[in-house]
């Protein structure tokens, strides 16, 4: 993919003014952020304006930012008794339905992330939109702009409970008929809620609470060590290569 010229990132501010914020330019993709009220309008321009010409919506997905950057194990500080135990609290995947942890505070929980593709310019674009209300996340639907948004929005609704205003047929798509909850939210248990099986006595399919225990083997840790800086990784690889050669 071609490198992104400065002019392209400038275009966003020229055409959209302050309705669009360029968040990041990395790995050959520009990320822009748009507020829900400008969402539809900006997307129409992104598709229609020949400067952008993003004719294809390759992907749309929801993201739940609850617990972003949180760990289950404090690795940097120690007391006189030593380091803390590896797993404290109910981190992702470690709780059952009845014991869901209180959500920590994040400014905006739900986001919709689009990946657009312009074949004319051979360019990709990531567009993010944070829903304003966490209790009832709502974002305008893009079905009229890109036809492929239809099922992707149904999926994001099903898994995250994001409501797409104006979607003609917002039904669940991946989960079971009559499912409750939105399974990809961070406060939905990994083991699920109900299990389904065929009961030979009742001669019908029945739903029961899940029996399995939450079981996550590896604690979630976050290390801001120097060893994960890209240049250090390269340098170390170089040293190893030299050792091998020498």
């Amino acid at each position, binding site marked *: 993919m071609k490198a992104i010229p400065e002019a392209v990132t400038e275009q966003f501010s020229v055409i959209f003014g302050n309705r669009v914020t360029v968040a990041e330019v990395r790995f050959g993709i520009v990320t822009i952020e748009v507020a829900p009220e400008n969402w539809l309008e900006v997307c129409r321009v992104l598709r229609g304006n020949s400067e952008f010409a993003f004719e294809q919506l390759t992907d749309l*997905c929801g993201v739940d930012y609850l617990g972003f*950057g949180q760990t289950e194990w404090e690795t940097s500080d120690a007391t006189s008794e030593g380091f803390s135990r590896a797993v404290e609290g109910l981190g992702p995947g470690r709780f059952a339905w009845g014991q869901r942890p209180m959500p920590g505070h994040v400014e905006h929980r739900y986001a919709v992330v689009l990946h657009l593709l312009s074949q004319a310019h*051979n360019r990709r674009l990531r567009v993010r939109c944070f829903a304003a209300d966490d209790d009832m996340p709502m974002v305008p639907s893009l079905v009229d702009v890109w*036809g492929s948004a239809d099922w*992707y929005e149904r999926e994001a609704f099903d898994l995250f409970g994001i409501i797409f205003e104006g979607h003609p047929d917002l039904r669940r*798509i991946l989960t079971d008929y009559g499912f409750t909850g939105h399974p*990809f939210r961070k406060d939905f248990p990994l083991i699920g809620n109900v299990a389904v099986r065929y009961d030979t006595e009742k001669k019908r399919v029945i739903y029961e609470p899940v029996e399995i225990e939450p079981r996550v083997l590896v604690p979630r840790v*976050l290390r801001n060590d120097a060893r994960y800086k890209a240049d250090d990784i390269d340098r170390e690889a170089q040293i190893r290569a030299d050792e091998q050669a020498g």
Partner: protein
Amino acid sequence: MAEIRNYTMNFGPQHPAAHGVLRLVLEMDGETVVRADPHIGLLHRATEKLAESKPFSQSIGYMDRLDYVSMMCNEHAYVRAIEQLLGVEAPVRAQYIRTMFDELTRFSNHLMWIGSSALDLGAMTVFLYAFREREMVMDMYEAVSGARLHASYYRPGGVYRDLPDSMPLYQESRWTKGRALKRKNEWREGSLLDFIEAFTRDVPARIDEYETLLTDNRIWKQRTVNIGIVSPQRAMQLGFSGPMLRGSGIEWDLRKKQPYACYDKVEFDIPVGVNGDCYDRYLIRVEEMRQSARIILQCVTWLRANPGAVMLKNFKVVPPSREEMKDDMEALIHHFKLFTEGYCVPPGETYAAVEAPKGEFGCYLVSDGANKPFRVHLRAPGFAHLSALNEMAKGHMLADTVAIIGSLDLVFGEVDR
């Protein structure tokens, strides 16, 4: 006159032409489809959520199980996303091996497709022919990774191991002996590369065989020509990719337009359709198999001439060998850390896409700096293609719906994820 009403019928989930677990609710006007409403999710395993609870490298195996007919291409997208965030790049030899196995995977996927979709339309023989060759690709998978289907062969930083110097041979048994045994082992006497080369040189002749059965076959053409036409504009609108997009006449292939691995170093052509019907999509997949053979041969030549490392020597990401662990304390520590905790991936987000046999398979990876992904989203080509089924099947006969579903090349592992 009696009132004639539309009626609704179920197609699948238990139907041989539903390619797995598609439940299609069809509203019919006689034999004509008025509305097709696919109900998916019967194979939903929440791969993306499972990946959030595990260190990065433990989810590679889940990728195989998405599109379980083109395993290594799925791994490739996921592994590339991790590599991008880590800022590492696999050695050239590993890149060539990936290119070669991506193409072998494409070949094996198209064989599966040609066999099963011809079977849907009543052509039995193609299936038997296609599986004869597919078996050999499975043998290559097995030789290189130890598994015939779910290989987990690609790893961040390279591939799991170098190509083996010998192929397992058929042993003599009551059923295979003498000349039959010799014929079966003929290509397998040398290294894996020899086997791949011998196989690939033979491939064009085999593809001719499938083509004699289908390309000019009157029944095949009656069932596929002018069925499920998609215009180029609609194909873009509906988010098509891969052979579906090229079938509608749009020359777009990530291997050419946004090259990854070693696709910029090999020569191949992109076939493009004219009418955008099922027959064009068939022709494209057949031609892609021939092009794959071309790429594989170029990779074989390069790999023969250029031995070298297939994994980075970076122990923060790549585990050290068992041998090194025996006498190097540092290596032992690295091994322990990598297998108990994994590696932390720098915060950021990326989207890595590969041209999988079915279309664009993308991996959107968000990391918050932890040893587990914060969010993984997998962009499966089949999901977008199936969402267009209503539009494609509308106005066609029920039997044509089967041809259209066949030409979409669906695998429910990736549609439902």
